[in-house]
C-alpha cells in the first residue's frame, strides 16, 4: 500500500514537477467510428496519491477518459502513460497485469448475481492467484471497510442499491490497488448514501491510493474537496486545485 506523503497531501502546484506521475495524458484524442469525437487534445497529469474528480455534464467524455486510463480503450491520437507504462506500447499479454494495479468501480456495478457477496469480492484475488489462505482474510477486511462484514453468504440480489455499490467498491479495493478508478459511483444513490460512498473514497485516498472519480454530483465534490478536472465536449475546461 502506498503511504501518502505530506507533499502529495498538500497538492501544491510548485512541488508537482518533483512528484511521480501516476497517470499522464499527452494531447490525447479519442474518436469513435461515425465521426464522434469523445476527447480532443486532452493533456493531464495525476500524481501518486492524488484524489481527482473528473466533473462535467453527461456526454462530456468522463467515462471515455476513465476507460483510457484503465486501458479499456485505445486513444486515437496522443499518448497515455500509467504508472510509467505507455499504454499504446504495452503488449496485449501484459495488459492483464497492468489492470491488476487498478480498482474499478463501475456505474452499473457489474456484480455476478449467481455468486454470493464473498465470491464477488474474492474474484480479483482469485484472478491474481492469491493463496487460498489469504483470500478470506482480505475479503473480510474489504467488506469491513464498506460495512458489509457478516453479509458474506448473501446473494447480491438481496442487497439494496447502495449495498450493491459498496459491494462493487469492496471488490475494487480487495487486492489493494495502486489506483482506484470510479465511474459515477454515486450516480444511482440517494444523497445520504452518496456522502457515505464519498467518505469511503476519501478514506482510501488517505492511506495513499490514487483515486480518480468521474461524477457530476456537486455534493460529492464539495465533500471530498479534491482536485477537479472539468470536462465539456471532450476538452478540459479548467483544472482546480
Amino acid at each position: 500500500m502506498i503511504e501518502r506523503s505530506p507533499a502529495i497531501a498538500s497538492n501544491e502546484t510548485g512541488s508537482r514537477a518533483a512528484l511521480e506521475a501516476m497517470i499522464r495524458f499527452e494531447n490525447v484524442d479519442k474518436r469513435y467510428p461515425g465521426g464522434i469525437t469523445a476527447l480532443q487534445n486532452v493533456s493531464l497529469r495525476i500524481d501518486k496519491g492524488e484524489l481527482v474528480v473528473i466533473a462535467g455534464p453527461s456526454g462530456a467524455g468522463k467515462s471515455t477518459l476513465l476507460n483510457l486510463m484503465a486501458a479499456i480503450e485505445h486513444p486515437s491520437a496522443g499518448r497515455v502513460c500509467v504508472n510509467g507504462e505507455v499504454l499504446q506500447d504495452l503488449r496485449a499479454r501484459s495488459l492483464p497485469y497492468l489492470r491488476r494495479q487498478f480498482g474499478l468501480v463501475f456505474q452499473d456495478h457489474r456484480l455476478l448475481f449467481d455468486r454470493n457477496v464473498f465470491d464477488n469480492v474474492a474474484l480479483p484475488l482469485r484472478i491474481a492467484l492469491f493463496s487460498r489462505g489469504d483470500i478470506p482474510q482480505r475479503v473480510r477486511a474489504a467488506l469491513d471497510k464498506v460495512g458489509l462484514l457478516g453479509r458474506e453468504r448473501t446473494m447480491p440480489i438481496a442487497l439494496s442499491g447502495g449495498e450493491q455499490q459498496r459491494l462493487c467498491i469492496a471488490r475494487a479495493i480487495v487486492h489493494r490497488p495502486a489506483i482506484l478508478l470510479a465511474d459515477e459511483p454515486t450516480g444511482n444513490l440517494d444523497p445520504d448514501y452518496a456522502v457515505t460512498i464519498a467518505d469511503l473514497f476519501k478514506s482510501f485516498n488517505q492511506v495513499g491510493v490514487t483515486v480518480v472519480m468521474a461524477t457530476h454530483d456537486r455534493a460529492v465534490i464539495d465533500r471530498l474537496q479534491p482536485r477537479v478536472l472539468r470536462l465539456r465536449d471532450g476538452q478540459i475546461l479548467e483544472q482546480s486545485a
Partner: protein
Amino acid sequence: MKNWITAHGAALSSALRRLVRRPFASLFEIFVLGLALALPAGLYVTVESVRGFANQHPSDPEVSVFLSLGVTSQDVAIVRERLEALADVQQAVFIPRQEAAKSLRQSPGLAEVLDALPENPLPDAFVLRLGTQDPSRIDALRGEVGGWPKVALVQADSGWTRKVNAGVRIAQTVALLLGLMFGVAALAITFNTIRLQMLDRRGEIELSRLIGATDGYIRRPYLYLGGLQGLLGGVVAVAIILAGTRALDKALSDFSVAYGTQVKISAVPWEYAAGFLGVSALLGGMAAWLASSRHLWARPLR
C-alpha cells in the same frame, strides 16, 4: 507453483460444477458425443476382427496340384523336382493321400462318408506357395503344370481370401473416413457447448478481463469442461462398443460355424481403450480451445 496448482484445481472444480449444474443437458451432450465417437470406433473394431480372421487364412496365392491316382513315389519325386524348378514356386508341400483322408475325417459328417467307400478316393497332392500375386502368371503356371504327366488337376483357391482382404481394406478406409467425419462432428458438438456456455457467462468473462484476468485464466475452466466432456463421451463410446461387440460376437460366431470356420470379434485391449479415451479428451479440449479463442478474439477489450 502451489498457486498454479490451486488455480488448476479451481478450474477443474468449476468445470465439474458446470457439468453438474445442468445434469440433463450435460448427460445428453455426453451421450451424443459418445454415439458420434462409438460409430467409427465400433466399425474399426469389427473390421479389425474380420482382418484378424482373414489373416488366419493365407491370402498369398496358394495352388493345389492333385496327382493321378496310383502314382509311385518315383512319380512324386519327379513332379516335386519339376515344381521346385519353377521360378514362381516358393515352396511345394507334399500331402500324401492318407494324410488328406485323415484331415478330411475331422470334418463333421465326412468320416462316415469315407468309411462307406471301398478305398480312399483322395489323390496325393502338392500345395504350392507362390512368390507372385499376378493372376496371369498364376494362370500360366496352372496351365503348364496341368499339362504334365501324372498331374490330374491344378486348382488355385486363394480368391476368396483376397476378396476378404480387399473388402477389409475398403472397410478400413471407410472406418477412417467415418472416424474423421465423426471426429469433426464430436469437435463441433463440444465447440458448440463451450460457445454457448461462454455466451451465457459473457458478463462474468468481460468483468474478469477488466479486472486483470489473462486469456489463460478465462480459458482454463472451459478447457477442463471440454476435456471432461470428451473423456465422458469416450467412456460412453467404449461402453457402447463393448455392449455392441458382445451382442455381435454371438451372432457372428453362429454364422461362421455354419461356414465351417470361427470368426470372433476381438476384445478391445485396455491400452486401446485408454488411448481412445485420451484421444476423446484431447478432442474435447481442442474444441474448447477453439471455442474459447474464438470468443476471446472476437471480443477484444480495447
